[in-house]
């Protein structure tokens, strides 16, 4: 085992594997001819025309839509792009930002991996002359990132809750499924729901459980809740994935007249709304936020200013059966 030659071979293999990994991390670069962007006229010292797009894992279609929209917009403006996922790991995010700095990216579009854990890496990039534009999630500090463009979770939750109350005629027993309790958005949405619903004294919340944004967990928890409260008339969920889990549980229990409302505006939820098994969802315009961030990055690179305040919020839109046809993948068609 301790044979030196063998150990060397193992080390060489490890180095190669690491190399391969970092290659994949910076993968999917596209080298379209840069025309419109002759970069580096802004305040930054960036000398390439690369826009690095860093988001959470694309296994959630929301983040995929966001990354795809940013990539498309940047390429249409003549930039090279690199798309990578930090998988909600602050450490990986930091490495990806280091990589973007060393490639002298013109800008970073970031959906960050934690409101506090991301402050350091964003500052690092800014200090190195790479402007950072945050989308979807804020960080707990202003004055570092050039822009923080997030959808208005509170407004979206209130919008969804109003439709929910309307669907239940302002009365009845309902269940709330909340998101991962460590995620700020879960709390903001839950508060938004409750701010509206608490104004209706005949709306009775019989159970609240977190299902960690997860469909299978929502399914089994909903089944169990139905055992105790067979007379549930409504379910409001912190995201569409959990709403879909609840829909499956209600279907298994042969309860067809329960009002279900979700959040996000995912394509699967829109399909359920069209089929009538879900009442409504609040669409977070992921694509719009990403496009706006790229536009502002472009403006900043060319003029040294975004012309916008740092904190910007994009209102969510309500999707119901009436307008479901007008929406595609996290965007209005």
């Amino acid at each position, binding site marked *: 085992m301790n044979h030196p030659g063998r150990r060397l071979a193992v080390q060489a293999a490890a180095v190669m594997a690491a190399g391969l990994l970092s290659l994949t991390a910076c993968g999917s670069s596209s080298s379209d001819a840069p025309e419109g962007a002759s970069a580096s006229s802004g305040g930054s010292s960036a000398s390439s025309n690369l826009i690095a797009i860093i988001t959470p894992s*694309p*296994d959630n279609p929301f983040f*995929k839509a966001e990354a795809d929209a940013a990539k498309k917009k940047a390429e249409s403006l003549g930039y090279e792009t690199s798309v990578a996922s930090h998988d909600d790991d602050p450490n990986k995010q930091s490495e990806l930002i280091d990589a973007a700095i060393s490639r002298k990216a013109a800008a970073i579009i970031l959906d960050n991996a934690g409101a506090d854990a991301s402050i350091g890496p964003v500052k690092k990039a800014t200090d190195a002359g790479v402007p950072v534009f945050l989308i979807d999630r804020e960080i707990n500090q202003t004055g570092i990132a050039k822009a923080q463009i997030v959808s208005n979770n509170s407004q979206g939750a209130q919008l969804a809750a109003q439709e929910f109350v309307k669907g239940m005629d302002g009365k009845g027993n309902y269940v709330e499924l909340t998101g991962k*309790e460590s995620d700020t958005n879960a709390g903001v949405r839950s508060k938004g729901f409750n701010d509206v619903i608490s104004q209706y004294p005949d709306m009775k919340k019989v159970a609240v*459980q977190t299902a960690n944004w997860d469909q*299978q967990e929502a*399914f089994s928890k909903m089944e*169990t809740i139905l055992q105790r409260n067979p007379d549930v008339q409504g379910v409001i969920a912190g995201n569409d994935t959990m709403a879909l889990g609840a829909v499956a549980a209600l279907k*298994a229990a042969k309860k067809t007249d329960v009002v279900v409302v979700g959040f996000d505006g995912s394509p699967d939820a829109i399909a359920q709304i069209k089929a009538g098994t879900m009442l409504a969802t609040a669409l977070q315009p992921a694509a719009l936020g990403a496009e706006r961030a790229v536009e502002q990055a472009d403006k900043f690179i060319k003029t040294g200013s975004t012309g916008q305040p740092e904190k910007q919020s994009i209102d969510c839109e309500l999707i119901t059966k009436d307008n479901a046809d007008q929406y595609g993948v996290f965007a209005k068609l």
Partner: protein
Amino acid sequence: MSDTLTNDHAALAGQRRQAAAEARRLKTLNTIFELRAFIALGVLIIVFSLLSDSFLTVDNLITMTKHVAINAVLALGMLLVILKGGIDLSVGSIVGLSGVIAGELLQGVHLSLFGVIAYPPVWAVVILCVAAGAVVGTINGILVTRLNVAPFIATLGMLYVARGAALLISGGTTYPDLAGDPSTHNTGFDWIGGGRPLGLPVAIWIMIILAVLIAVLLRSTAFGRWLYATGGNERATQLSGVPVQRVKTIVYMVSGACAAMSGLIIASELTSAAPQAGDSFELNAIAAVVIGGAALSGGRGTVRGTLVGAFVIGFLADGLVILGVSTFWQIVIKGTVIVVAVILDQSQQRFQRRGAAASAVAVAAAAEPEPATAARSDR
């Protein structure tokens, strides 16, 4: 002379009685320990029934058992691997992979060579998914037996590879509607999660059938004896001519197939398949096996115990949801139950050793005056 003899006899008889009483006492304690998972389950059921009217109803018991089945199917596969002294961390990822393969197949397979889309019938989809799980398990087995990778590492690697494969096949998205289409003759997939032959959900039947099969396998076949022996002392077992490598590969294969089955149940219940399904399910399965009294070092564990372990975890989780206890507490309580189970297991081991010693004394004392036949046949 005759007095001392009688005294000796009396003393001996007293000693014998004492030893026998001690052995009986330890035996009772041992039985209690042996039944501890059952007792825990009984306590859970009583406590939850007192706290909520809706707990102890036939309907709720069936629902909870259906939830238990998903974990129990995984845990039965895991039991075999743990009996061998190994561990399988990849089962959660295989759950996701199996669902995704089902989704892909039910959506229609594009055969570009013939320019057609093939829609395999549901039974073929089920067989292919279980086979895929078995193949992944077999790769685990080969890594462990032929390439000498430690089970923890081999299956940890597979945890990532299988999850990555699920994401690659699905392109990261969820397959939304697995109900099939009458025009392509592939409807009926939702029966696995929603069907109720003889009043019980299919998932429960799968659990029962699998439990019986594995119990028979362990109890009445050479394979079962080989497996226990391998877990107890691998080297000695190998030297006595048992095909240890094959036994080890087979247990990983079965574990993979069980995981795939579990993935099918989940995908069918939701009539949709997400590539991230089954995340961290391996830990629940390991917990069920451990609560059921199996030793992680191998060679000890039963199907009955594992099932009860799965029921304890499942009933605990659902009971706390019915009571409306916060998720944070649910996690803390689950962790505590697992650790307490292992502590009890350790004391059981001690009692068993003492019990064995005490009964040896009792047997020896009983054998002393009449050393003829009975004692020998006892040995």
